[in-house]
């Protein structure tokens, strides 16, 4: 009977213990956390009404928490999405600037060439009439080559212009000596002789220099805008690493698990995480700034002596200057050529009369009415285009090194600089004590918030750095008035192809890396599962201990 009484007492104690355990979770409400969680479109059943034991959490604090395991997983995905959204917004804005400016420049340059060709045709029909129309394909070919150069490169401008002047000389030489018949061999001799005589004056030399410089600068600048657009487009797609994702979750949503739904992350805390997550993008900054400086230098040239508008607008007048020089010098030139190349053969009498007839036919006089300079579809002159782009370029400097700060300045991401003592520091609402790390991959070895593998730079970023470096080099050549060997474009294309292949080759490596990470997660999960079981068994353990204690006491008695 005494034993029965003892058993009854033990049962009573056990019941009391269970009652105490059940009472503790009711001490804090999670209603606000739950409301925000549901407002993001998540399942309300995931969110507990009162704080629970946090042993099931992987990243956030395992103290008493308002987050279930499902909540932590969903918050992890959400924080990654929030991060990608903010970064993407910044990059898309910059990318749109370069895309629109490239389009404007491209339209302007192409329309400038069209207008120049039309202007030349109009002028030459007036001044040279029938003789021009008989030989107009010569000038059409010139513009075809100029357009081809701008669109595709692969045109040696100097050789092309030399060829143009040689053909023009040949035509004019026939015309001013229409009483003769010239064989191809004779004309070849004429060409060699006239190299010294300069029948067109200094126009060919000047025009060659001006056209080459202006076209190289214009094409390189337009290509630079396109490269900038593409680089930003590629880099804006950010895939955070596992360590970055953990840090983001901790920064953005772990405060919710503590019930601190209105406390923003500390600015410096955010900066460290962003510098860790955007480490590779930070390494882009040096080459990006060099690229922007080179673009600004070429822009200066485009506004100054390499202004393609001031070269192409009057190109009809310049070529006409050359033709007039040849016309003025034709007697002396012909005499010297005849001395050097020997007397040419006269034409039969019938052809002579026909030539006279043609000359009579071509004689005409028209009053010239000056026209206003044609306006391109862009509705602007080159000066205004360049001035506008220069402003945008200056604003784009340091974009990649300031991207972490820009992201942290977004009110969705962090508290401002003024809330340094009352902000979320990853553990509590307090001050953030760590120093801000430097930009770039090499500086992330000591990042206290994000574990970064500094030995593995991002291949995509490295390729963008190389693309910028190549374009910067072309830009500097264009600035110095040097023609650029654009055959490396094909190398660049094949390089990109190799890059794609490289990406595929890197896939196994990346897969291995992911596999390692995955196995790590699996191990963690197993550990958590093992840890979970003891947690679940805690009430029984306590009861057993109580029983044991009482038993020992009994024995002592």
């Amino acid at each position, binding site marked *: 009977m005494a034993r029965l009484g003892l058993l009854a007492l033990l049962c009573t104690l056990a019941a009391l213990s269970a009652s105490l355990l059940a009472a503790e979770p009711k001490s804090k409400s999670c209603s606000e956390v739950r409301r925000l969680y549901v407002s993001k479109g998540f399942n309300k059943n995931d969110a507990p009404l009162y704080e629970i034991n946090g042993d099931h959490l992987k990243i956030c604090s395992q103290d008493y928490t308002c987050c279930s395991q499902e909540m932590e997983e969903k918050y992890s995905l959400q924080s990654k999405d929030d991060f990608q959204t903010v970064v993407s917004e910044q990059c898309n804005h910059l990318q749109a600037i370069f895309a629109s400016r490239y389009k404007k420049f491209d339209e302007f340059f192409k329309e400038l060439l069209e207008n120049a060709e039309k202007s030349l045709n109009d002028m030459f029909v007036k001044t040279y009439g029938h003789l021009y129309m008989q030989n107009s394909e010569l000038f059409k070919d010139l513009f075809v080559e100029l357009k081809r150069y701008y669109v595709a490169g692969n045109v040696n401008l100097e050789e092309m212009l030399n060829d143009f002047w040689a053909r023009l000389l040949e035509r004019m030489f026939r015309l001013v000596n229409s009483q003769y018949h010239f064989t191809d061999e004779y004309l070849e001799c004429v060409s060699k002789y006239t190299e010294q005589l300069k029948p067109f004056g200094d126009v060919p030399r000047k025009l060659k220099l001006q056209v080459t410089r202006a076209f190289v600068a214009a094409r390189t600048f337009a290509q630079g805008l396109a490269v900038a657009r593409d680089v930003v487009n590629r880099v804006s797609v950010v895939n955070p690493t596992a360590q970055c994702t953990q840090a983001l979750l901790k920064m953005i949503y772990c405060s919710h698990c503590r019930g601190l739904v209105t406390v923003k992350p500390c600015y410096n805390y955010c900066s460290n995480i962003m510098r860790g997550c955007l480490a590779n993008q930070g390494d882009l900054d040096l080459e990006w700034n060099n690229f922007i400086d080179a673009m600004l230098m070429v822009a200066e*040239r485009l506004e100054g002596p390499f202004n393609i508008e001031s070269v192409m607008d009057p190109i009809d007048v310049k070529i006409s200057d050359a033709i007039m020089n040849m016309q003025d010098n034709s007697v002396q030139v012909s005499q010297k050529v005849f001395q050097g190349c020997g007397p040419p053969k006269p034409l039969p009498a019938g052809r002579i009369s026909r030539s006279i007839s043609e000359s009579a036919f071509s004689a005409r006089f*028209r009053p010239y009415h000056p026209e206003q300079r044609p306006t391109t579809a862009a509705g602007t002159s080159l000066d205004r285009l360049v001035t506008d782009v220069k402003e945008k370029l200056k604003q784009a400097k340091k974009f990649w090194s300031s991207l972490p700060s820009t992201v942290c300045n977004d009110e969705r991401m962090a508290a401002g600089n003024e809330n340094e003592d009352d902000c979320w520091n990853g553990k509590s609402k307090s001050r953030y004590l760590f120093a801000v790390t430097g930009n770039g991959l090499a500086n992330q070895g000591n990042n206290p918030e994000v574990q970064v593998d500094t030995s593995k730079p991002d291949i995509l970023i490295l390729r963008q750095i190389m693309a910028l470096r190549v374009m910067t080099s072309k830009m500097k050549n264009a600035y110095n008035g040097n023609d650029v060997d654009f055959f490396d474009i094909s190398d660049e294309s094949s390089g990109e192809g190799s890059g794609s292949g490289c990406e595929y080759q890197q896939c196994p490596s990346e897969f291995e890396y992911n596999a390692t990470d995955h196995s790590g997660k699996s191990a963690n999960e197993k550990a958590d599962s093992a840890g979970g079981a003891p947690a679940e068994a805690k009430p029984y353990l306590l009861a057993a201990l109580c029983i044991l204690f009482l038993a020992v006491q009994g024995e002592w008695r």
Partner: protein
Amino acid sequence: MEPHLLGLLLGLLLSGTRVLAGYPIWWSLALGQQYTSLASQPLLCGSIPGLVPKQLRFCRNYIEIMPSVAEGVKLGIQECQHQFRGRRWNCTTIDDSLAIFGPVLDKATRESAFVHAIASAGVAFAVTRSCAEGTSTICGCDSHHKGPPGEGWKWGGCSEDADFGVLVSREFADARENRPDARSAMNKHNNEAGRTTILDHMHLKCKCHGLSGSCEVKTCWWAQPDFRAIGDFLKDKYDSASEMVVEKHRESRGWVETLRAKYALFKPPTERDLVYYENSPNFCEPNPETGSFGTRDRTCNVTSHGIDGCDLLCCGRGHNTRTEKRKEKCHCVFHWCCYVSCQECIRIYDVHTCK
């Protein structure tokens, strides 16, 4: 003896200091042939004598333009020697001296005013011409045409960018004229007068386009005048230069010297006039201190009553006459076809030189 020797050395040092302090030594750019190939040897900026730090920076930053600057100074000196060829002081240069005109320009004379103006104009002119040549990557034609095309013509050719040339001249020539003394003020004024002359004499040149002398289309462009016209104009300004007096004022930065017209009844000088405030020395007799070479043995014009005539040029000392035999081509005949043959004749000239 020692005190006397020390005194002599000190005098020389002070004299040298005075000469180098105010003299535009960079005019010696005109002498060195190596300066015209600066582009391939950029380090030579440091070896150009007399450059002040600002000019040195300019040289290094715009090495491409420096040959034009050197050419411009040379052009100025040549024009000076042409304009003063018949005068007592004829712009003689001293080949082995950095002060290429000697001490004659140390004083704030009319001659100094002219040389500053013509050198400054020469630099502006040569740089502008070089830009129009089209070889420079820093400058080119002036595409901001000043004014709309007129009736029956349109812009063509290469409008010379004289504003750029003037800018370079101002940047380089005035770099050392930032002292608060009267000489600095005078030099700046005269330098600017030379540059303004270039801008004032820009004119439209035109060309007809069309078959066989017709003028279906006419094109025009802005062009500099021949530099001789600039020299003629500045020579007139030299003849009518305004004499000034020096005034001192206390300003926040200390004493500042400015120039005021000496004679209130005369028209005050404009920015296009030359100014001076010291009298010219007597150039009749040689005087090492003033830099005068004298007019002895100078060729003079016996039939002229002007400054180049023997009476005035020889300062009343009289002249000598000698005969010279010169070989010249004469009786040239054109032979069909095609050469010219000439005979060689001897002709006797009278040459008059000052005693």
